[in-house]
């Protein structure tokens, strides 16, 4: 015991504090290494997009999985979020006697923020986790090694089609989320709350313009790229066993989601500056 104690860190509060500092240092090192790894992975992926022509028979099944299969869940989410926005905003607007302005708030929130972020979140949950689990299983069962052993590049075959699928199809999914959200908001406001449809749409048209819509779509390109890269990276670096695959799938969603929120904040700030540049008069006031 004496020999063991001499090799151990100091006991008590000092020892506890030393351990925390060491853990923090390890966490920081792991984080920096992880970010570097994903950056190299991203550069290799982008390189392979241009290095070789993409194969239709590889692209189409991925596009189908990412785009077509995600459509129902994205549409459903958009529909309900539109209705929830109407439910939550109605009381406040009614108190001010501005019920007819409800459409402008619902639709502006949807096309600028909620549509893109929710479409991306659903994509991260449905497709990101599945990609990490699938590639993780391929890693564990040596299928990725098999690709390499046959002189094929795993990034070209496995990552590029998923990356392009997310990048190209997330705008379409966002359009669907926006559309269904607008529809849901209108349905609840007009049919259930009895707001006059003419004023509802007139106000919406006045306060929501094409720039707002395009801004939301533009952001999703970054979200789609982030989801594909983070998820595929987790799959490629999956630890052995069922637990490793499960952890890769969970981490793929959690890290994609956090990255979506961080990107949303910084893109929001930057795009507001862009908006101010093109429209120095500033945003129109809702109330």
């Amino acid at each position, binding site marked *: 015991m004496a020999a063991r104690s001499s090799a151990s860190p100091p006991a008590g509060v000092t020892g506890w504090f030393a351990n925390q500092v060491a853990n923090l240092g390890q966490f920081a090192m792991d984080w920096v290494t992880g970010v570097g790894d994903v950056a190299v992975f991203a550069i290799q992926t982008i390189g392979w997009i241009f290095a070789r022509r993409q194969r239709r028979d590889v692209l189409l099944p991925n596009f189908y999985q990412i785009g077509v299969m995600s459509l129902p869940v994205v549409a459903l989410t958009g529909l309900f979020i539109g209705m929830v926005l109407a439910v939550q905003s109605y009381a406040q607007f009614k108190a001010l006697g501005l019920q007819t302005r409800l459409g402008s708030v619902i639709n502006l929130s949807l096309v600028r923020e909620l549509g893109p972020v929710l479409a991306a979140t659903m994509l991260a949950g449905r497709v990101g986790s599945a990609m990490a689990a699938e590639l993780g299983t391929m890693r564990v069962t040596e*299928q990725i090694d098999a690709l390499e052993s046959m002189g094929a590049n795993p990034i070209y075959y496995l990552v590029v089609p998923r990356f392009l699928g997310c990048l190209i199809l997330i705008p379409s999914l966002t359009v669907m989320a926006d559309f269904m959200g607008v529809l849901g908001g209108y349905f609840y406001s007009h049919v259930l709350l009895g707001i006059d449809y003419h004023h509802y749409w007139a106000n919406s048209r006045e306060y929501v313009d094409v720039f707002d819509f395009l801004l939301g779509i533009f952001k999703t390109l970054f979200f789609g790229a982030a989801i594909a890269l983070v998820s595929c990276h987790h799959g490629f670096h999956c630890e052995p066993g069922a637990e490793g695959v499960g952890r890769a799938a969970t981490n793929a969603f959690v890290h994609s989601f956090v990255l979506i929120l961080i990107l949303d904040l910084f893109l929001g700030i930057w795009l507001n500056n862009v908006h101010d540049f093109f429209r120095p008069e500033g945003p129109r006031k809702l109330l």
Partner: protein
Amino acid sequence: MPAAAPAKPRRPDEPAGPLLRVDSLHVRFGSQEVLRDISIDLEPGRTLVILGESGCGKTVLLKSMIGLIRPTRGDVQFEGRSLAGLNDRSLAHLRTRYGFVFQGAALFDSLTILDNIAFPLREHTRIPDAEVRTIVESLLDEVGLPRSVLPKKPVQLSGGMRKRAGLARALALDPQLVLYDEPTTGLDPIMSDVINELIIRVRGRPYVTSVVVTHDMHTARKVADRVIMLYPVFRLRPDEPQVVFDGTVEELDRSRDPRIRQFVEGRAGARLMELREEQARDHEIQAESTATADADADTLEGEADA
């Protein structure tokens, strides 16, 4: 190099010297040393069997031979060209001259058997689809699989059929060097023997050299021209070589080295004692860590009270 089988003629375009040279290979994963100073010259047309207990680094050595694992030190040369000196494109091109049969077959789950076997042909040649199908069918015949498996997915096949489909895929580009990773593991004795016969059949192809990693003595006796036995690094003294045997199967059977005898005869021997000692040590560590945690908690409480 023991002369168990007559040397095959070299390919007309093949340079003199060994087909594959492993030169002072060291592989380390973090603090764990897996391969220590391995040197092997592989003559063309021969079948080398690498024997050794689980965890001794056989598969790591096999994957290093094709460049799937980069050595910490040392070099692997194919026809005199160092794998470490090749860029990605050249290495990918060189790998078309290899065939790799993975332990679990490693067929692509999302593709049919036809697409799996045709994969290397479609990746590296411009052969029309109809001709690709003909080649795939002839490969299926060679490994003894019915054509009815072609539209099936790998999960619909038994373990032995998957292994044979994996072998067919490895042979698709008519490789010079075929690497087998535990080809009979997980198979029943009959299917194991079928796989052994297939390895012998592949050896009969002109100019084919094979490396078989296994811990199955039956396979070794049946297919080997030359046997190498690896010993786990953590059981070696610092000055001991990791290759504890290099010779023919007959020489292996005659060896008096207790490490070799234990493996060949399949005896647990002193390992049982080690197992018990390890268990006792685990219990001791567990008890010690519980006691330390209690003591730390007491100290913290004491300091808080003070």
